[in-house]
């Protein structure tokens, strides 16, 4: 695709005999919110771990911003503007909320081999961190240690950390996981604001959220793409209904 910010071609990743990513190709256009859905075990997290570099593919290529990043380690991809949040909240638990965010800002503000000055007293890092925190509604909780934040707040903090890196693309792994109804609604609203500014790849189980937010949806089953289209078309797609949405209906009604 012409204006693809992220372009994945023929990606394969096996774990022993299991093919978690099976000849997968995918384009994410600049500016869109691209949702990836699929039943449990479809290989969604495996896929985005390869996108952001926590995991390397066996074969295939990943291009980000016209650059081959297939073999780049995670920290280098982050420097290119690819930020991710984790499905299982992955923060610096013994650091305060603002320290978590400020470190992300620091990572994109030159090298950190500075041994003398007080990092917590650098106004531009603190300001950037505070802005990101306020963005996700955590301004009041800046000095709270992460382990004392609620689960919902930690999910929001994940997002603030990703934002602080001023990324070109946000890769969000189930940001709604474990959130209550009101917290989910807040998160959806937040993502609606963010999607105007940054390209987002969203993996999410909450179908209401996905259909409300996504510009396009890719459906993954057993590591392959079975459909990739706008939400309305995905809703009508017979194969998707059979493979995924139908299953869920069975699950909720049975």
């Amino acid at each position, binding site marked *: 695709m012409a204006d693809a910010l992220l372009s994945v071609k023929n990606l394969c990743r096996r774990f022993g005999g299991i093919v978690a990513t099976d000849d997968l190709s995918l384009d994410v256009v600049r500016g869109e919110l691209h949702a990836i859905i699929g039943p449990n075990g479809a290989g969604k997290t495996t896929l985005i771990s390869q996108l952001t570099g926590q995991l390397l593919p066996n074969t295939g290529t990943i291009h980000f911003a016209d650059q081959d990043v297939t073999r780049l380690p995670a920290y280098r991809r982050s420097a290119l503007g690819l930020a991710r949040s*984790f499905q299982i909240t992955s*923060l610096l638990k013994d650091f305060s909320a603002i320290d978590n965010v400020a470190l992300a800002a620091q990572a994109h503000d030159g090298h950190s081999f500075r041994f*003398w000055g*007080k*990092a*917590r007293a650098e106004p531009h890092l603190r300001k950037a961190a505070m802005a990101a925190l306020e963005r996700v509604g955590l301004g009041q909780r800046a000095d709270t240690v992460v382990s004392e934040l609620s689960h919902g707040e930690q999910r929001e903090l994940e997002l603030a950390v990703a934002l602080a890196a001023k990324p070109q693309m946000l890769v969000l792994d189930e940001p709604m996981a474990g959130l209550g109804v009101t917290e989910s609604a807040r998160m959806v609203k937040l993502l609606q604001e963010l999607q105007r500014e940054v390209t987002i790849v969203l993996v999410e189980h909450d179908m209401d959220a996905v259909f409300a937010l996504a510009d396009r949806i890719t459906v993954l089953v057993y590591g392959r793409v079975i459909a990739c289209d706008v939400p309305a078309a995905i809703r009508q797609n017979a194969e998707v209904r059979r493979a995924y949405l139908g299953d869920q209906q069975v699950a909720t009604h049975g």
Partner: protein
Amino acid sequence: MTAQLNARSIVVALVVAGLALLPLYSSISGNVFVLTLFTRIVIFALAAVSLNLIMGYGGMMSFGHAAYLGIGGYAVGILAFEGIGSGFIQWPVALAASALFALVIGALSLRTRGVYFIMITLAFAQMAYYVASGLARYGGDDGLTIYKRSDFAGLVNLSSRVQFYYVCLGCLFAGIYLVWRIVNSRFGLVVQGVRSNEQRMQAIGFHANRYRLVCFVIAGTMCGLAGALLATNTDFVSPSIMYWTRSGDLMVMVILGGMGSLFGPVIGTIVFLVLEESLSQITEFWALIMGPLLLLIVLFGHGGIDGWLGRLRRG
């Protein structure tokens, strides 16, 4: 951390004042032994402070930290033996050799994590131990006597007991100050972030191992300085200075005092060495008392002595 008037800061202030005034007490009371003991304590405290930088702040459980004591000590000893008596050469060489050793073993060890890291650092230190034992020219197993202390061109006289004590104390305070600056710097926050969650730090854009390695080298260099001081203190250096039990002692001092606390290792070292000294005068089976005692402190005093002092404020 703000300086509040709590149990912890009172103890720290008392210890600092006590250490600073110790030579005065020693000369008034005529108790030379206490100065000898505390010179040793101050030197080991510097080593413990350096180990705390990687262990407490960096999360790197190095079980080979005594290797740097040996390298620093042997650098001074060998140069003195070969007739190079100037401290302006001996000490920089001691630091550089320790830094280089830390760079090499760090680059290799930091590919591993957890128990493997502990084992590989232990293995490297034991290698250094056996290499030193094989240095026939420099005494091998029997060690090397240093007949003349480093010459600093009249700047300080290391042969003076009091001056040497203050040199050691100055190095300790400088070391603590350095660690304090480091842990609050950008670099220090990154290192502590990696301890807390390495994957996260990689994901936000830090090449974690590069920071860990630099931290490892800083700590090794600091401990090399302690090694140079230690060898000077005893006018002697032998392979046993870096035997693995010594690395274990250093770890105990850090854990006892409180990992990741700025001043904890100093208190840990004082308690450890004073206990060792006084118990060994009561019975030759002093380790039988020392062991369970340490076990109790580690089991029940979460965060070591420093952690316990921190809790006193509220209790």
